[in-house]
């Protein structure tokens, strides 16, 4: 079971994963919150916390938003970097599992944990280069992003809601979900057009998920307006300038 699906089994299978646009992500953590919300109440819940309302709360989350700075001076910028499971084609977390709890589905490439088989040894979390797996502090089994498998195939939900909770909630439209094996899918098109990339590929994991890079800032961007000297030829502007002078004395 913890052998990866062989090429014949995977042939024709989909490669579902997330695509995160690092240009538009505003770092609001709504995706992480909704992920926690859905997955603690959904089919795979609870997704536990310890000391949730105490001084040192700690818990399992399937999505974490890291923040980085890149570039220097004028070219410097802040990039929010949401990170969850990349549903790797060569998932090292799957093959190390001794009990058969970890597996990769041949039909859609989703990497899952059968929690009733998990003995909580933590080896899969060591094997994942990305830190995508976290031990549930109460249930003592390994947790990871399921791509909200209980949403995306859920016929009780409206079709528009059959996307992972993080994608459904993102207010900036920075998260996309789709089939990377299908060249005509929206995620494949975005990856082609925007130069989508995977991370830490040198570890041989062949991640499915991709990021879209921050766009280059336009060099002609005007310097931002300041509020120092309100100057205008408009009557209202002149009036305000006069008020400003009177109040400044």
């Amino acid at each position, binding site marked *: 079971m913890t052998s990866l699906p062989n090429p014949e089994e995977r042939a024709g299978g989909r490669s579902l994963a997330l695509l995160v646009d690092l240009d538009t992500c505003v770092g609001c953590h709504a995706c992480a919150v909704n992920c926690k919300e859905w997955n603690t109440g959904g089919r795979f819940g609870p997704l536990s916390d310890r000391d949730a309302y105490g001084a040192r709360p700690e818990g399992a989350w399937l999505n974490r938003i890291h923040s980085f700075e890149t570039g220097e001076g004028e070219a410097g910028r802040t990039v929010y970097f949401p990170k969850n499971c990349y549903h790797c084609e060569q998932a090292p977390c799957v093959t190390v599992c001794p009990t058969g709890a970890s597996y990769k589905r041949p039909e859609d490439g989703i990497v899952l944990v059968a929690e009733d088989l998990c*003995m909580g040894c933590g080896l899969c979390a060591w094997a994942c280069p990305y830190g995508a797996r976290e*031990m549930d502090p109460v249930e003592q089994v390994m947790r990871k992003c399921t791509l909200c498998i209980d949403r995306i195939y859920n016929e009780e939900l409206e079709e528009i809601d059959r996307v992972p909770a993080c994608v459904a909630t993102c207010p900036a439209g920075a998260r996309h979900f789709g089939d990377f094996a299908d060249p005509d899918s929206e995620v494949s098109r975005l990856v082609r057009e925007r130069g989508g990339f995977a991370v*830490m590929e040198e570890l*041989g994991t062949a991640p499915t998920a991709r990021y879209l890079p921050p766009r280059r800032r336009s060099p002609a961007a005007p310097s931002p307006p300041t509020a120092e000297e309100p100057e205008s030829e408009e009557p209202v502007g002149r009036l305000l300038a006069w008020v400003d002078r009177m109040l400044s004395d």
Partner: protein
Amino acid sequence: MHPALSIILFTTSSGAGYGMLFLIGSTAALDLLPASRGFGLAATALALGFVTFGLVSSVFHLGHPERAWRALSQWRSSWLSREAVAAAASYLPALVLALGWTVAGEIGGVWRLAALLTAVGAVATVFCTAMIYRSLRAIPRWHSPWTVPGYLLYALITGGIWLLVLFYLFGETPPTPLLHGLPSAVIATWLVQAAAWKWADGAPATATVASATGLGPPGAVRLLDPPHSESNYLLREMAFQIGRKHARKLRRVTVLSAFALPLAIGLLLPFASRLVALPASFLAALSMSLGVVVQRWLFFAEARHTVTLYYGAETV
């Protein structure tokens, strides 16, 4: 990596046990062991005791120990599962050998097959243990060509020194290959450990924060804010790191107590009377075991996981 006591005890204790089982099995197969029942009972009991203590303490590391038996199922892909299978399978020939030795009072003839299988099983189990670490690419210090020879040699020398103590305790003459081979094995382990440290210290970075985020060339990406205000499983388990100064000190402790002192004692043992040899070998065994525990602690504490790249590390 977090140096969990249960895993350190498991790898060191079961390592010594399998080292002993290998030496008992191979020397029994070569007819070099005394057929004395008391010695046989003590030797197999101590070896299996080390192994069992190690395996039991490893179970304390699990979130669901009651599901540990499932670890026997995935030997096709998982080194941890292979280790579990090899460990379980090794008990059988070891117990048959113990039976032949202590009850039947002989270790030749039909018991020789059990002796051979015991030796093979012991090597296979330690090999699998080492491969669990060797196979993890996310932890470059473990993904080293020196990990497997290191584990095998540490098992051999710790098992060897404890077996030697038993020989003196029972007033038996240790077989020449054991007595004269041990110092060379200690030197070999010392060399492999030195090579492993040198390799790990000089190895080029496996991954960088640039490759982990895809955000520009190395040096241009800096962590701005952590993703969570409190600690989490990832940080506790994988971001443990020991200061370089302490690491250097602890390496010296390892060298002195695991290699230098036992080597000096081991070289003198052939010339010592039993009265001196027993306490001297016991001191060497204690010192070596302490040294190997420190080495194993360092093996974890010095190892860095690529996930730390998302928490401020520049390279791993």
